[in-house]
């Protein structure tokens, strides 16, 4: 049975990932390539730099994100839901936008430096920690803390001996995700890091698209894959440990801050988090309101909606239409990722050894450069009936590939938490497998599935890399349009792109709020 479920995800992964990536790597690779590339001290330097900046980035993001993660998941306060949604916005903003907002914010001395890259990465990834760790906090049994308190344990003792040990697997897992995002980040490194400090991802982009040096690109892609797979292995160990069967226990962990200390803690953490997240967004809004050196006006906003009669015309007509395209593409990508991801999670949960393999395989797209996948698809999907190049479906397919691992990671623990006894009881009573799944499994994973879908949609809305390497006829998404607006010199174009970015942030915020509401009050995880 699990094998049958695995057919769709395995074919999907094989056709749209393994075959293309293997083909492009095979085309570049030869006997001496590995030695030549790894023998270059410059390339070894790039690998080392990529590694340590990602490690530092993960450590700082965890340090910054833990307090809001715990506070937001534990205490009820006005604006909590909105703050939870706002924190997620940076994660889905196109990197072009993040980069330029930070250049405006950071002192000039910081431009083109490693600290600038790390600050921006931390800002973007805070939500990963807040939402995943928060979700684990929400699942903690409050009775444990209450019992300890009754026995005389102070708040710090409870944090050290109960909360943190129970959260450790999730903290480890979210650290791993942040590491991965910083490791494979492309746009922010290019914009903020400056030309002297490429990462692996940037170097793969340069050797492939600018130099057509497929030999070097193949080795670098392999190195990146190996490093990421090792990390995924660690993550799988963590998340397997964190999933104990708990049944469909209703969670009742959210409470109002009762003591003065709790109220201060909640207030200060919430305010600080709001400030950190909102300031760069304010820069965007301000820019959108200054379409010329003459001063403030709404012209860029008129331009976004295609009403440009009173002023100049931006490079793109009616940029807001790109938001509609983004939403359409995002919904298709989400449907694909959620369907394939759920099937995969069911297969992984049901299988024994093969499950681990599929699980790891599904993680690979995360650790592979969008350029490698894009160029691979180009040389493999070129023969009918699989010649999908340039068709609109390629874009949601590419985005679904990136979102798929997250769907699996979020749905799998929920599936594992289903008490197998319930399934056996249903089977004994004569329920067919499908009915068992619909009546036992689905109600338990419904929330997780909603969360996964929301995450996939958000990722798709902000996706730039994979989309920009695919050939597109029409269907320009919002991030692509923002980049195109920035491609011509004028303050109106800059202002219009900022206005579109502000709109994209607002739409994303609404989408996340809707998903959070759909999933109910508890469990913040992605």
């Amino acid at each position, binding site marked *: 049975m699990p094998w049958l479920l695995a057919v769709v995800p395995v074919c999907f992964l094989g056709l749209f990932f393994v075959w293309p990536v293997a083909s492009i790597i095979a085309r570049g690779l030869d006997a001496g390539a590995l030695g030549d590339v790894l023998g270059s001290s410059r390339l070894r330097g790039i690998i080392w730099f990529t590694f340590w900046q990602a490690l530092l980035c993960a450590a700082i993001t965890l340090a910054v994100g833990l307090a809001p993660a715990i506070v937001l998941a534990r205490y009820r306060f006005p604006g909590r839901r909105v703050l939870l949604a706002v924190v997620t916005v940076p994660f889905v903003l196109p990197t072009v936008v993040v980069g330029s907002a930070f250049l405006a914010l950071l002192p000039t001395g910081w431009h083109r430096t490693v600290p600038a890259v790390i600050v921006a990465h931390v800002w973007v990834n805070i939500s990963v920690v807040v939402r995943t760790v928060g979700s684990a906090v929400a699942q903690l049994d409050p009775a444990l803390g209450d019992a300890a308190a009754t026995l005389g344990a102070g708040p710090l003792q409870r944090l050290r001996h109960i909360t943190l040990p129970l959260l450790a697997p999730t903290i480890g897992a979210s650290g791993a995700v942040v590491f991965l995002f910083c490791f494979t980040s492309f746009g922010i490194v290019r914009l903020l890091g400056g030309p002297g400090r490429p990462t692996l991802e940037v170097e793969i982009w340069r050797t492939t698209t600018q130099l057509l040096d497929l030999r070097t690109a193949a080795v670098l892609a392999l190195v990146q894959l190996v490093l990421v797979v090792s990390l995924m292995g660690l993550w799988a160990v963590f998340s397997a440990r964190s999933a104990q069967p708990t049944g469909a226990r209703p969670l009742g962990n959210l409470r109002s801050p009762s003591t003065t200390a709790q109220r201060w803690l909640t207030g200060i953490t919430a305010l600080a988090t709001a400030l950190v997240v909102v300031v760069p967004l304010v820069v965007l809004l301000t820019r959108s309101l200054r379409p010329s050196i003459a001063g403030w*006006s709404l012209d860029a906003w008129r331009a976004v909606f295609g009403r440009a009669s009173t002023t100049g015309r931006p490079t793109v007509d009616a940029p807001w239409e790109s938001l509609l395209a983004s939403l359409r593409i995002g919904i298709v990508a989400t449907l694909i990722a959620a369907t394939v991801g759920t099937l995969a999670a069911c297969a992984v949960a049901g299988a024994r050894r093969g499950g681990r393999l599929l699980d790891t395989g599904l993680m690979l797209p995360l650790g592979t450069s969008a350029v490698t996948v894009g160029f691979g698809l180009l040389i493999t999907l070129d023969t009918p009936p699989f010649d999908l*190049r340039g068709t609109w479906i390629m874009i949601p397919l590419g985005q679904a590939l990136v979102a798929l691992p997250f769907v699996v990671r979020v749905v799998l623990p929920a599936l594992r938490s289903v008490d197998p006894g319930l399934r056996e009881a249903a089977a004994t009573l004569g329920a067919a497998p499908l009915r068992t799944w619909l009546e036992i499994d689905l109600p338990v994973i419904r929330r997780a599935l909603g969360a996964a879908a929301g995450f996939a949609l958000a990722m798709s809305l902000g996706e730039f890399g994979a989309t920009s*390497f695919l050939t597109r006829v029409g269907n*320009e998404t919002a991030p692509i349009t923002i980049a195109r607006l920035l491609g011509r*010199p004028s303050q109106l174009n800059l*202002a219009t792109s900022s206005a579109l970015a502000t709109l994209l942030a607002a739409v994303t915020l609404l989408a996340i709020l809707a998903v959070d509401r759909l999933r109910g009050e508890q469990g913040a995880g992605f």
Partner: protein
Amino acid sequence: MALSGFAVLAACSCSSGGDDSAGVTLTLLAYDSFVEPESLATFTEQTGISVEVARSGDTGTLVNKAILTKGRPEGDVLWGLDSNLLSRALAEDGLFIAYESKALEQLDPSVTALVPGHEVTPVNVGDVCLNYDRAWFASRNIAPPDTLEDLVTADFKDLLVVQNPATSSPGLAFLLASVARFGEDGFVGWWEQLRANGVRVVDSWDTAYYDEFTAGGGTGSRPIVVSYASSPPATIIYAEDPKPTEPLTGSVEASCYRNVEFAGILDGTEHEDAAQQLIDFLVSETFQAELPLTNFVYPVRTGVALPDLFERFARPAATPLALDPTEVGAKRDQWITTWTDTVLG
């Protein structure tokens, strides 16, 4: 998808019927920043051939993708191969189908001379030049730079921002400008002086222009930037009403490096005849006249009038710096490595 498969079959059956191309849909592959001139619709009215523009990445990505898909192209015609990548593309046998357009003799002969075999057809020229912030220099009573040599003098310390030639096409053009001006042996020394004089390097044109340039609208601190000869009129065209009568920026003519762009018919197309008609149209007077205001490049066809703002503020350089594309093809990577060691090392 079944439907689109059917449409493809239908298109094939009517194109094989003879040399009648009406009803054919051509795919024009272009870089991301390509803006479709409105006259493409005229082409469809005249010939019955529809044109679909498919975009993917920058020029490097576009050309390298075409090379990788040689024989099974993603489209019928490619727009945007440039003179710096010309030799790499022409070294590939069977990438383009040669076509000698009847309009060729109307084009600038110095440009058509670059492709004696007619593998591709020149479609526009652009000049990459230093731009300066006019208000910045005026308010300080300093003269803007006149030559590349000026940039290494104390007057211009810490004023210039350029793009990394390894990752940006204007950045590469500016490096090639220095090679054209100071020679293969001299350019390194000039860049060493430029580095000592505080040149700032960023990865892309938009970062340089919007975030580092003083007239880019951001919080930039550098009044000289590498951009295009056509950038100054853009500061008027995209400005709010009442529009300024003079551009915010000026360009330094002696720094201009000429880049030529080409279009070519991709080998493997099923619509060669229609593709030839499209190439003819791309160099027609109607289409060429629209290029300055849509794509901020200059026509290659002689006798095409420039729009008024270009005539006044952005005439192409009379004697631009230029290098032989074959030499660029052979030595570009080595020059970039030398540059990287000198300026970023």
